[in-house]
């Protein structure tokens, strides 16, 4: 089996390792998960949780049915609706957007997986989150808030 051809020159290694010397070598785009989050993004994630919960119930779907339709695990779906520490994978967000008939790009922004382009997007998300409280059935206010927000996202 062909070897990769890594050098055996110790002097080169020592010199380069000395320059590197235990410092950071990190690459990759996970900074959005790591940097101090601004206050609005916690509200956006709350809006995301409320949105998928209300929309699911509005469509008359149980979490089990949603699990069957999306292929996502029950645990992931429960956590996506209720766990503020849960960070959904992009794939889950896309599947939810598809089944719940919501715009996928905006869903990604709400979930904190991509940056929002629009000014005021965060404010509107915060207002929706504040107006929507989880209850067994949707109240007319929740229903109206949901309709308005969905209409905004579709613009």
């Amino acid at each position: 089996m062909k070897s990769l051809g890594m050098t055996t020159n110790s002097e080169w290694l020592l010199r380069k390792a000395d320059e590197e010397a235990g410092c950071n070598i990190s690459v990759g785009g996970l900074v959005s998960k790591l940097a101090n989050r601004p206050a609005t993004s916690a509200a956006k994630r709350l809006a995301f949780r409320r949105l998928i919960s209300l929309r699911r119930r509005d469509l008359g779907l149980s979490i089990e049915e949603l699990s069957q339709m999306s292929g996502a695990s029950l645990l992931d779906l429960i956590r996506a609706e209720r766990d503020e520490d849960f960070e959904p994978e992009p794939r889950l967000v896309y599947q939810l957007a598809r089944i719940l008939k919501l715009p996928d790009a905006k869903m990604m922004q709400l979930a904190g997986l991509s940056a929002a382009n629009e000014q005021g997007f965060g404010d509107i998300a915060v207002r929706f989150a504040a107006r929507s409280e989880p209850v067994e059935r949707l109240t007319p206010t929740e229903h109206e808030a949901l309709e308005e927000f969905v209409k905004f996202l579709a613009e």
Partner: protein
Amino acid sequence: MTKEEITLVDAMSKRPVVATLYLELAPTALVDTEAVWGPARVAAARSRAHAVLPIPEHWHWNWATKKDHLRLLANRCLGIECGGVMQGLMMINLARHAAVLDSDAGKPLVYIDFIENAPWNLKSLVDEPRYFGIGIRLFEAAVMLSTNEGFHGRVGLHSLPPSEPFYERTCGMTKLDSDPDKEDLAYFELSRASAAAFLKGRS
């Protein structure tokens, strides 16, 4: 599993030590490594809560969640093991990116998606790192892999800010603009010519 013997540097004695470079890790290896690194990161971060050096920006990574990437031919994970323990991991992609530097524009390269040193090798997490040279060895492996794939040593990556000096100075990459599609991280590229210089510099 394809592997070859290489050397790292023992941080205390500054002497070369024998290590193993794995060229194609299986998904289980990522899960096993995370099982060891995860708790070590948390423990190290807790003990450094009052330290002066900042905690590394990527420390939330979970390599176990990256194992599914390896279902695709285009993705490959390399690793360096020393003393029976994984010391570094690198996930690369062979097909998703093309070079942007003028001399090589549009030509394929090895793109480094993720790369990480074991937590006990980082000065920001421990007072006495165990091994040095993991970064440069993994980078060297990326350049050699690129050569072997016919990409003439071209490598690309988006660096987190604290790592920029390493990629620019130690690895000889060209720093390009911040990429708005990648959370404004700076894009770095090693051209064919720079790769040749890097490899020649090893002799």
